[in-house]
């Protein structure tokens, strides 16, 4: 009886406040917009039976935001990445194993051929599908390119800022792992401390730095590096800076955890066996810290994709991110059905990186235990 209560209370709480709300979002995404309170017309009710329910579903909102085209594009990008990654690993290994000389013509050709084959495969699959199921093509029509662009530019901004965070975070994690044992707790605390301070305030701090008459421009003008103030605030550059700044701890901590466990004798062995220092780094340190790198990248990429605060405070009107579009659709346009459809598609896109992240974590747990 006690066990039952212990399970039931948190279970029911999550069911009521997490799962059921999603059902509602799904339901409203299939409804029509209306000028009322609440501003939508429910498209179906559960009492009419499942047949009536299915015949009444209204995919208008999904068609309006171009859901078919978005999903197809994301799947294509994922397929290309799946093909490109092993090839990239091959080229990478050859390159750092012995410099450019080892990068034979054959492996380069293999790389080019497999990328081209990947693109061809994607094209052929879609050609075959559209030949046999012509109605699929109509799913790809896009009414309003705003959403399509917003999803793609969210993907782009998230990918670029993840790469930048890795570039800033890896050297820091590496430095922390090489520092004397007595420093490490303090360095750890210094990395974690910003995480406890308000996210909003940390983003806000950059508004004063990056604005036209901000501190950065003042310093650069004073130094004589630039003749007139740079425009950084309200551009994508400011968004990249904001993401790198706020998500840096999420990148550093998993990489540091991986590097700290690394056995130094492996690097010494590589050097004894004739590796130069840099190729020992690329061939031993980087591959062994890979789980940390992958975890850190996902921890930055996944939340950045749906980010709202950073693009709305640092980005400009040209910065399209899906979190911001959803917010404006909901609060400014009051189009709840379309906002719900945008949310559902965002969730569908997020499933891919989330599943990959969990696989990486599981593999790491198995390797550790």
């Amino acid at each position, binding site marked *: 009886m006690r*066990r039952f209560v*212990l*399970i039931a209370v*948190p*279970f029911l709480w*999550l*069911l009521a*406040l*997490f*799962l059921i*709300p999603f059902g*509602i*979002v799904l339901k409203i995404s299939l409804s029509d917009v209306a000028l009322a309170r*609440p501003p939508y017309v429910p498209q179906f009710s559960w009492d009419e039976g499942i047949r009536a329910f299915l015949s009444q579903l209204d995919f208008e909102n999904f068609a309006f935001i171009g859901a078919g085209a978005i999903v197809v594009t994301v799947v294509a990008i994922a397929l290309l990445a799946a093909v490109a990654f092993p090839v990239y690993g091959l080229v990478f290994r050859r390159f750092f194993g012995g410099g450019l000389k080892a990068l034979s013509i054959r492996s380069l050709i293999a790389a080019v051929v497999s990328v081209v084959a990947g693109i061809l495969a994607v094209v052929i699959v879609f050609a075959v599908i559209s030949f046999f199921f012509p109605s699929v093509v109509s799913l790809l029509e896009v009414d309003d390119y705003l959403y399509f662009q917003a999803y793609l530019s969210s993907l782009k901004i998230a990918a670029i800022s993840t790469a930048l965070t890795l570039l*800033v*975070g890896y*050297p*820091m994690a*590496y*430095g922390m792992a*090489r*520092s004397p044992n007595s420093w490490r707790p303090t*360095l750890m*605390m*210094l990395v*974690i*401390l*910003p995480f406890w*301070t*308000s996210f*909003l*305030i*940390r983003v*806000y*701090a950059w*508004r*004063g*730095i990056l*604005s036209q*008459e*901000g*501190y950065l421009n*003042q310093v650069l003008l004073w130094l004589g590096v630039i003749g007139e103030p740079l425009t950084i605030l309200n551009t994508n550059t400011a968004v990249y800076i904001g993401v790198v*700044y706020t998500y*840096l701890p999420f990148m550093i901590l998993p990489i540091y955890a991986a590097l700290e466990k690394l056995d*130094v004798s492996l690097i010494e062995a590589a050097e004894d066996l004739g590796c130069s220092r840099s190729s020992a780094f690329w061939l031993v340190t980087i591959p062994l810290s890979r789980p940390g790198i992958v975890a850190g990248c996902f921890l930055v990429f*996944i*939340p950045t994709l*749906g*980010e709202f*605060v950073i693009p*709305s*405070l640092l980005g400009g009107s040209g910065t399209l991110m899906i*979190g911001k579009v*959803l*917010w404006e659709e909901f609060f400014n346009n009051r189009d709840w059905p379309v*906002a719900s459809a945008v*949310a559902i598609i965002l*969730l569908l896109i*997020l499933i891919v990186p989330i599943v990959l992240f969990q696989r990486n974590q599981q593999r790491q747990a198995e390797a550790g235990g």
Partner: protein
Amino acid sequence: MSKLSPFNVVSLTLGFVFLYLPMLILVVYSFNESQLVTVWAGFSTKWYGELARNEAFLDAAWVTLRVAFFSSTIATVLGTMAAYVLVRGGRFFGRTLFSGMIYAPLVMPEVITGLSLLLLFIGLGMDRGILTIVLAHTTFSMCYVSVVVSSRLVSFDKSLEEAALDLGCSPAEAFRLVTLPIIAPAVISGWLLAFTLSLDDLVIASFTSGPAATTLPIKIFSAVRLGVTPEINALSTIMIGIVTVGVIIASISTKRAKVKAEADERLAQRTE
């Protein structure tokens, strides 16, 4: 690895300058006399005075503190229960769904969580206010608490609990006398995490709050959109100060507890 190359030193220094300089500038300029935040006009604490007289900010701060206190407390209870069930509960119907619902909110974009909760509250015809924000914050922060607590539960020796049960404890007594003291640090840090998450949250609070209840982040966000103001700098400085003091106290006390535990262990070994 214990030799720092010049490259390591440079990257660590630049990295920490990057992390801390923006906040330092914010703190310094909160003591600026001028209305213009970017021009230094001499030392003054007048913006702190202005802040103390700003009723709207004080009200919002009070609402935020109450929401954070209640939501983090409920979240700690629910999250600890969930962690206990997941780690010690064995198999039961719907376990996969349960663990999925625990982990999903951690990676869910805030806009989606906020939107879905708002649609639920409207569907139920609830008036939006403090209660709805507390419900929303409890839901996502209980998942963080449960992750923190379950990592502690996994790592501690189950035989301690079994010994207590063998020696005649009831399950409730075993939990209270053995399990709870061992997982207490994790429960406390879970509560602190839930509290800060709630203090910090803008997006979910914006969706679930009504005109009757505005939290501090919502207030700050609408002020910041219009531009940088010295009052917000002063407010930020106070918040940064509180967090810094809190984290330093927490790290000193865990260090003391560790030293004490080690001393106890040595003592125990000597008396054996």
